[in-house]
């Protein structure tokens, strides 16, 4: 049984396809969410010199490796977009799967990192620095999980050559997730 596509899927009243416009609005709201969180962290960090003694316990190499993983996954996301524009759905799907793999590697590294930190006694409630650390990295991790799930759905359709415009849309979201990490990395791992 087939359903007619909703008008919003096909409309482009603002000059931007509605799906992509929706993604830009999501990102606009995400800027306020992450911006508020990171802005609060920066202000507290500047007002609390004692946090420096807590931040030395984060693992810079794990953070750097995860940055590399996300940057690489972003490369595959944009290559998937390029393939979708060339109407090559199966190639776009394959590249999206590699992007998903990047997301999974990121989450695995993060889980090892957190396990080690919790075993060392650095928990959500041990200090305000760690509260910010787990909240910011955790919220970002949830966005990575959401991105991977959506990408798997988009890839399943793209493999059949369907809804190829969605490859670009999920790519824009994924690059934003990468962008947030680009700022989280120096804030949580470099500034010691």
């Amino acid at each position, binding site marked *: 049984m087939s359903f007619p596509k909703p008008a919003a899927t096909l409309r482009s009243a603002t000059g931007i396809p509605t799906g992509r416009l929706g993604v830009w609005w999501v990102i606009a709201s995400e*800027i306020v969410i992450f*911006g508020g969180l990171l802005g609060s962290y920066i202000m507290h960090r500047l007002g609390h010199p004692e946090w420096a003694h807590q931040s030395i316990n984060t693992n810079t190499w794990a953070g750097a490796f995860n940055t590399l993983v996300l940057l690489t996954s972003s490369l595959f996301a944009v290559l998937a977009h390029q393939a979708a*524009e060339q109407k090559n759905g199966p190639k776009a799907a394959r590249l999206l799967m590699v992007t998903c793999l990047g997301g999974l590697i990121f989450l695995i590294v993060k889980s090892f990192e957190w396990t080690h930190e919790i075993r060392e006694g650095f928990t959500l409630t041990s200090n305000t620095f760690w509260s910010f650390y787990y909240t910011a990295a955790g919220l970002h991790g949830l966005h990575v999980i959401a991105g991977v799930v959506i990408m798997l759905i988009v890839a399943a359709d793209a493999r059949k050559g369907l809804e190829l415009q969605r490859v*670009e849309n999920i790519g824009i979201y994924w690059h934003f997730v990468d962008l947030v990490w*680009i700022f989280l990395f120096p804030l949580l791992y470099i500034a010691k």
Partner: protein
Amino acid sequence: MSDTAQAQTAPAPAAAGGEHHHPNYVKIWAILVGLLAVSVVGPMVGVRWLTLVTAFGIAIVKAYLVARNFMHINLEKRWVAYLLLGMLAFMAIFMGGVSPDVMKHDGANWNNDAAKAWVEKGLKEAPKEEEHR
């Protein structure tokens, strides 16, 4: 033609977006990885201003490269960039409004004794914790 009919005949989003020239993405990725390496090595020198430049200055450059080349924000309608910059402006207003209360622990007519106590306690405990490790 009615709105619904127009919607049905409008081009699909991918077609409406149109194809565009793609830069060399691998080259941009390589630049981003190079910048990442600098941001990791920079703070090892131990100079405060160099740490700030290599960590946060490079983060801004990396963000620009991703937004421009991967998100293609330069090819999007200009008001999208204004929308996103507007959100950043909201963030700046928020920070400007609350930063005096958060970053300072006293003023002409007020004292945040609790915050001062936390700073003092944290600084006292820090050397002990480091010794313990």
